[in-house]
């Protein structure tokens, strides 16, 4: 298939929405822009047109969804910023974490396992909230490292930790689903 001059092919996700390339981001503005752009490019808006229009609409809508998904999520946004800046957070190879962080994760993991075994949905709910709080603190640290200190090594470290935390967070989800079943 011939490729056409579609703007998004030349733009990063921030440029696509006309937003500054920073970690700090106005979530409401992003959502508004996402809706405005999607309202123009979505395949539903072009369903009555020819094949070429419909194909281009699908490509655009797919790209806009991908850009929105990436920018909206704090961890994905941080990884994307590191990627744009050419900084590899070495997710696969660098598994070193501060002892204190690891201790905390093990403690949480044990508590989750206990609550799951006991079928304690309320306790799991609490842990879920607790995790979210701890992750929010990490997001703030990412903002400091990326936007203020431009300390990409530190940002990479927080990204690696957050991936760990997100995994545990989704395990609590699974435990809740299992307990409620």
């Amino acid at each position: 298939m011939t490729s056409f001059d579609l703007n998004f092919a030349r733009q990063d996700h921030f440029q696509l929405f006309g937003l500054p390339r920073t970690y700090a981001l106005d979530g409401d503005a992003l959502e508004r822009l996402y809706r405005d752009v999607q309202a123009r490019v979505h395949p539903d808006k072009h369903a009555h047109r020819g094949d070429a229009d419909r194909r281009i609409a699908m490509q655009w809508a797919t790209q806009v969804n991908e850009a929105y998904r990436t920018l909206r999520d704090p961890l994905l946004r941080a990884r994307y910023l590191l990627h744009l800046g050419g900084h590899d957070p070495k997710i696969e190879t660098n598994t070193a974490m501060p002892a204190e962080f690891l201790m905390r994760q093990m403690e949480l993991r044990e508590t989750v396992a206990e609550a799951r075994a006991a079928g304690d949905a309320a306790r799991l709910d609490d842990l879920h909230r607790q995790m979210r709080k701890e992750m929010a603190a990490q997001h703030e640290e990412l903002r400091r490292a990326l936007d203020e200190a431009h300390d990409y090594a530190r940002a990479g470290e927080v990204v690696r930790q957050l991936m760990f935390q997100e995994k545990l967070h989704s395990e609590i989800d699974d435990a809740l689903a299992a307990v409620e079943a």
Partner: protein
Amino acid sequence: MALLQISEPGESTAPHEHRLAIGIDLGTTNSLVATVKSGMAAALADELGRPLLPSVVHYGPPEHGGHVEVGYEAQAGQSVDPRNTIVSVKRFMGRGLKDIAHIETMPYDFEEGAGMVRLRTSQGVKSPVEVSADILRVLRLRGEAALGGQITGAVITVPAYFDDAQRQATKDAARLAGLNVLRLLNEPTAAAIAYGLDNGAEGIYAVYDLGGGTFDISILKLAKGVFQVLATGGDSALGGDDFDHRIFCWIIEEAKLKPVSPHDGRLLLTHAREAKEYLTYHGVAPITVRLGSGEYVDLKLTTEIFAGITRTLVQKTLQPTRKALRDAGLGPEEVKGVVMVGGATRMPQIQQAVAGFFGQAPLNNLDPDKVVALGAATQANLLAGNRAAGDDWLLLDVIPLSLGMETMGGLVEKVIPRNSTIPIARAQEFTTFKDGQTAMALQVVQGERELVSDCRSLARFELRGIPPMVAGAARIRVTFQVDADGLLSVTAREQTTGHEARIEVKPSYGLTDDEIAAMLKDSYSHASEDAFRRALREAQVEAQRLIEAVQSALREDAQLLSQLERAHIDACLAKLQAVMIGDDRRAIDEAMDALGKGTAEFAARRMNNSVQKALSGRKVEELDR
């Protein structure tokens, strides 16, 4: 492209006319067709004024002319000829024998078939797709009769929790019924459209949709004309039918009946359903039945007993509800309203459970039987291009189940997570396991579990021609694309050497265009001359549609083209206009193709331009006049 649109040969469709579009709710128990007339969505009734069409198909004996009865007349005969009277066929769509619950109590003669079960009937072996197509055909004819013309296209609703196999089967059935499918639309989303547009609703809403055979829960955010689905969940094998079945089991136990015949089974199920419906407005339902075996049933089912024997079913709906809320990152208290959809939500124990869970009375101000069809009709009207001022709403929906690939050891690598907004494309790289490996078997699965054996296999295919390399050196890029109907296509490609071993698959249970065309040909007993004229007519309609679209684009954005480019497009337009009045189908197709190619770059520029306008904050209305 539309496979078949039927109108009398020679009948003309004037340009810029209101395009006829319908919305169809293909339900487990009942189906409906609706359309938008003078700005209002309304269900279309049959000649006796009945809007519902029971989703029942009876294949009459060939010796009596081999009639196919659909709806009330088929329902009337269901206890006489249960084996050939198919009810709740939706439960079989895209499903194998092992997937179907309570199969032992069903009176049908099943056999396993490619992709899904088949039913042996007096008129031969039928796939659930064909049975569904028989229902859809009646609705299409009803639509054509009511609207007095050829239907441009239809939106068909599916349960949000339908997987790829079930969606593909539904789309195939619609095509087989001669419908041009504009979009598959999720049932709760259709209800949200009907509710949201009617009430000017803004905020977070939940749609609790318990139909005859499926349960969906969707969490949506409604804001400024955008219906954004945040999360969806459900159970595609849980519905009002299961409540009937609980009553059926209760009757057998209470009346101490011996194993019942298919005929008595159907009779008891009918009485179970009647008792269920009676209990919506009464405290006690009497059940008295004289069975063919001579046994006599005389029982009283109270609301309390009914609630007791169905408690686990009610709980089974709250579990996905919790999960969907969690996926949306919301608590029940953040939901502004709960829209109730589906006839089964009339049951008092459902109303109470939902009210208890969300801490508020659910919204029952819509007809739960019709709301899905009305939403579908509204969407169909918009997609067909009949946009009136103020009609500028947009729908953003999600996929209900994660999509992934099998990796070593039978594990699943998720490629697209559930609740991703569609359309979506995602690529993942895989590599070889052995030195010199030149082929790779790929399996695409759908589901949330980590083991392949616990997920549904959508497709298996082989990528061949990988250049021999050491293990782990090849890079196979597998791309998943899910379109706006929620349907998947997969592309795989080896890319280290630049050698392209590329394969594109649609999941294997879907019918190919050729198979559909062959089935269509079989189903029409007309002479081939008619088939030829129909195909020609269809191409002409398509050509006219394309010409109008290009002309309207030129009126709006001609300044984006150089004189040379404009001249080329004008030439393509003139060529198509010249050939479309003739009867050379191939020439029309070729001219359409040329016009499509000639306007692709123009379309790309228009889209870039449109996005720039959105970003610079201009009003949407400017472009979509």
